[in-house]
């Protein structure tokens, strides 16, 4: 058996070794797509820090709390804003499918930054400060969120099917867009129903 018969194998082996030696440098210039999807998460947890026990029957001057959280899987450190809004049954909600936020004015808001792969979470305490009730309607005059009082003046009609005056506290996620140099609705919101009782 002559050594020349192994020339091709020898060359392939040598080239493979050279490629292995050059790989760290090649990795500096060749970036393969990660293939992972980029997205953000928005969640709401009850007072026990679980997805249960959310406040529902809310009395005037009662203290309630929930946790709101955001997870960043965008691939870069992101600048987020969460708007807290309050509505009655007829006022508009955001439409996530076409990235339209609710036109209602925000009450409370959070501005924060989250590294890729990390999460942000905050406690939110709220209290209904004042209501006016007639036979078939109730008006929530003001609401306190994390100790800050906001005038809302939102009126809800009596829901005969569900026996209550229903409102929603909802949270919209906004993201700072570097291209447009401004915040844009990030097509994510979470909400909870509140049955306000005088």
């Amino acid at each position, binding site marked *: 058996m002559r050594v020349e018969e192994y*020339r091709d194998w020898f060359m392939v082996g040598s080239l493979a070794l050279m490629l292995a*030696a050059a790989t760290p440098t090649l990795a500096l210039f060749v970036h393969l797509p990660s293939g992972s999807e980029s997205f953000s998460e928005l969640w709401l947890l009850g007072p026990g820090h679980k997805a249960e026990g959310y406040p529902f029957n809310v009395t005037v001057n009662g203290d309630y709390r929930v946790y709101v959280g955001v997870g960043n899987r965008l691939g870069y450190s992101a600048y987020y804003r969460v708007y807290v809004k309050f509505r009655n049954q007829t006022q508009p909600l955001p439409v996530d499918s076409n990235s339209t936020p609710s036109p209602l004015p925000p009450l409370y808001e959070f501005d924060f930054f989250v590294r890729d792969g990390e999460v942000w979470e905050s406690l939110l305490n709220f209290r209904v400060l004042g209501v006016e009730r007639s036979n078939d309607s109730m008006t929530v005059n003001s609401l306190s969120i994390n100790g800050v009082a906001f005038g809302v003046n939102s009126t809800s009609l009596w829901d005969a099917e569900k026996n209550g005056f229903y409102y929603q506290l909802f949270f919209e996620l906004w993201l700072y867009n570097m291209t447009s140099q401004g915040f844009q609705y990030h097509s994510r919101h979470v909400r909870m129903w509140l049955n306000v009782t005088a």
Partner: protein
Amino acid sequence: MTGTVSALKFSFALMLLLIASSRFFAPVTFAGVGEVETASALADAEGALVSAYQAVLKAEEAGANVSGLLARLNEAGGFLAQARMAYRLGYFDEAASFADSSRNIGGEVQDAALELKDAAVSEGWQSTMLTMVASVVGVAVIAIGSLWTWHFLKRRYGGGGFPRSESAS
């Protein structure tokens, strides 16, 4: 002469009138400026925070560890949110104070991010050069070693092929 005296009297009377009327106009004027100034302070704070964020992103892209800077940015973001809420509620003094705090932190973070980015770029450049030199040396050593080994094998076994073991032969 009489005309000059009349002009002086008129000027003096006008001055007194302006001083007296300023008592009524001043509060209104100051209230308006307060809201406008606060709006300007808010815009400044938002601009400072965005600039700081962009600087942090660049530092992060350069390979710097920006955890500490993001924590500071979150403090600034908290102040900015407080400022915006206070402004909407009409508490302009508080809003201006929160906006100033946010802007100051934003400025600090931006400066720190620029320094971090420069350090990261320098370290990254050194690391890149080291990697490239190591790769070039590695490839060269393997290429030369392979050629030398091949020629050695050809000289040693080229004529009669690889030596066979005793049992095989």
